[in-house]
């Protein structure tokens, strides 16, 4: 009996020592979780999540202060990836908060007065121009965050949907009525 106790105590001590050692030896600097979450987020910096940018949202998720379904531009795939990363359940978007079709901002250069307000709003510096000069969206850099739309005093910015091109065209998911349930699989959370 006593010897068994000693053995147990010895094992606990040993394992404790190993754990303690590895905690020091393999200590991870910083919080890599934030980086990992940030890497999943689409970097539109749109603030639709209620945080000023993707990084702050990532930090909030890491702290457990924010839900994973607050990022419409990331789409359902984004939620799924976050769920997988954090080991939590998939959570669909709330009512009416789903992702929108990809779009880029477009400045009507006839109406633009060159006020630079949109330049200040753009989180990724995708608007070229200077004071009193016409502004133009650099479409390839635009993340479609819509943050420039509201500040414009003359409402010359509109969001333009991206047309499908041969380069971005995707093969559709094979749908055949027979063996598949009629509901698209996208709506079913992955278990």
């Amino acid at each position, binding site marked *: 009996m006593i010897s068994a106790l000693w053995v147990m105590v010895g094992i606990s001590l040993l394992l404790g020592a190993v754990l303690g050692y590895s905690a020091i030896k393999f200590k991870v600097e910083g919080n890599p979780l934030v980086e990992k979450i940030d890497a999943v987020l689409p970097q539109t910096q749109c*603030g639709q999540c209620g945080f000023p940018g993707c990084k702050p949202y990532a930090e909030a998720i890491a702290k457990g202060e924010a839900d994973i379904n607050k990022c419409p531009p990331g789409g359902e795939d984004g939620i799924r990836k976050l769920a997988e990363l954090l080991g939590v359940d998939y959570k669909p978007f709330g009512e009416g908060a789903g992702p929108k079709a990809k779009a880029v901002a477009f400045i009507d250069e006839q109406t633009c*007065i060159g006020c*630079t307000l949109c330049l200040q709003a753009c989180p990724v510096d995708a608007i070229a121009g200077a*004071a009193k000069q016409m502004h133009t969206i650099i479409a390839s850099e635009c*993340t479609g965050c819509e943050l420039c739309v509201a500040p414009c005093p003359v409402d010359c910015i509109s969001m333009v949907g991206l047309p*499908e091109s041969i380069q971005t065209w995707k093969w559709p998911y094979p749908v*055949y009525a027979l*063996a598949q349930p009629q509901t698209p699989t996208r709506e079913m959370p*992955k278990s």
Partner: protein
Amino acid sequence: MRTLDHFHGGIHPAEHKLESSELPSRIAPLPSLLILPLHQHIGAGAKVQVQAGDHVLKGQLLASAQGMVSAAIHAPTSGTVTAVQPHTVPHPSQLPGLCVHIEPDGKDQWIDHAPLEYRAIPKSELLAKLREAGIVGLGGATFPTHVKYSLATDQRIQTLVINGAECEPWITTDDRLMRERAAEIVRGIEVLRHLAEPAETLIGIEDNKPQAIAAMRAACAGSDIEIVTIPTLYPSGGEKQLIKILTGKEVPSGGRPTGIGVACSNVATAYAIHRFVDHGEPLISRQMTVTGNVRTPQNIEVLIGTPLEELVRLAEPLPGATGYILGGPMMGVHIDDLRLPVVKGSNCIIVKSAKLFPPAEPAMPCIRCARCAAACPADLQPQELHWFSKARDFGKTQEYSLFDCIECGACAYVCPSHIPLVQYFRFAKSEIWQRERETQAAEIARERHEFRMERIEREKREKAERLALKEKAATAAKPAAPIAAPVMINPDADPDDTLQMRIDAAMTRAKEQAATAQPRNTENLTPQQQAKVAEIEARRAKFSELASNAGADDESSKKS
């Protein structure tokens, strides 16, 4: 006799080659219209060099290659450019791409051209000329030929493989070409031999084409080009599979044949090269099989850009067409619209009928019989890939080597459950590509955002320093500027209040302008649009509030 290797799997679909292989090929008459897509090859699209109204001569450059992996496009006949505008192109998406439209003038007048004394010029110059002549691989992949033969200085080609296998059912263009133009093909092969300097040259031809084999043997008599008869087995005409059969070497996953000392070109490409070096003609026409539900299936030499409609008409289509296949039945593209043009990669047009191509049977669940795995020439496990593609588990599809799939269709051909496996794989591939594009875009956006934050920070700091200096210099007390000032692209811009005044002035001007000029797009908003604007406003307000809070925190921490 050469000992042949073999690849894993393979299938024997019904050949249907005799329908079109026995008639001599003919030359199509001049079409009424030519439509030339600018993107007919793998790589970057060509850059258009003409505009509507231009008169062009046969062989004149319409669009030049841009970038390394690209090829030029030429006018297939003389005529007038009527438009440079989008038109549906032969692609599974059936989406439009930019095309040069030419109305032939009927004169078929050549631009000045002359044979090329290719042995007298450096190889790099010859390669550049092939690029300018728009020569691409005509076996189907349309990989620019000059790229394939641009070898690094340390690369040596051991074997030049000429692909005459033509393993897809129905197609007989290479067969006919080898029977009728064997000597010309060999002239083209000589150019490739000059470029690659291979130790051996092998022409692989499936044993279901005895006449083509005989013709090529005769044409190669006396040279050290070897004709190798290979067993008929789909997809032995796949580049990697043919190389494996002939040399026993496997092109590494993701690699190119040149990496293992092999170069591979199609017989039709060799023929196109012959036309260029011996006649000075760029790639403006090709051979195509017209077959299926037509009265006289045959091979036709056709100008690139000819509407398929006019081509199919030559073979007298029979009633009951249920669509068309551009290419072969194993790897081709289904099209409904015959107004699409012939492109460099088109080798066959099959008119479908319900009898020849019965509609696909409904798909049953996979029963894991693994017949697909037994048929796969890339040693993949299609049943697993199907499972993961279906579940959209794209990471797993990549683990199971999705991108080594050559989309040959052997798996879907043997599947007793009639699952459209290839479409699943194509779906998964394009989803992965899109995700990669998105990741890249996100990466760029992140960098730009971080750069911006840094810049704002720096400007704030500089401004604070300037202010501090000013305060020191001037003894007169002056109200301090607000700390969290908005930042401008132009660092020398005016302070805020003046800016605000200017904006106001500009707005009044703009309003006046708008009142007199056309209405703005923001008037008459629908309730939804208004709601949207309101939502954005609210978000923006919250955003700036949060941002300024954060900024204020930063400021205070810095000051303390």
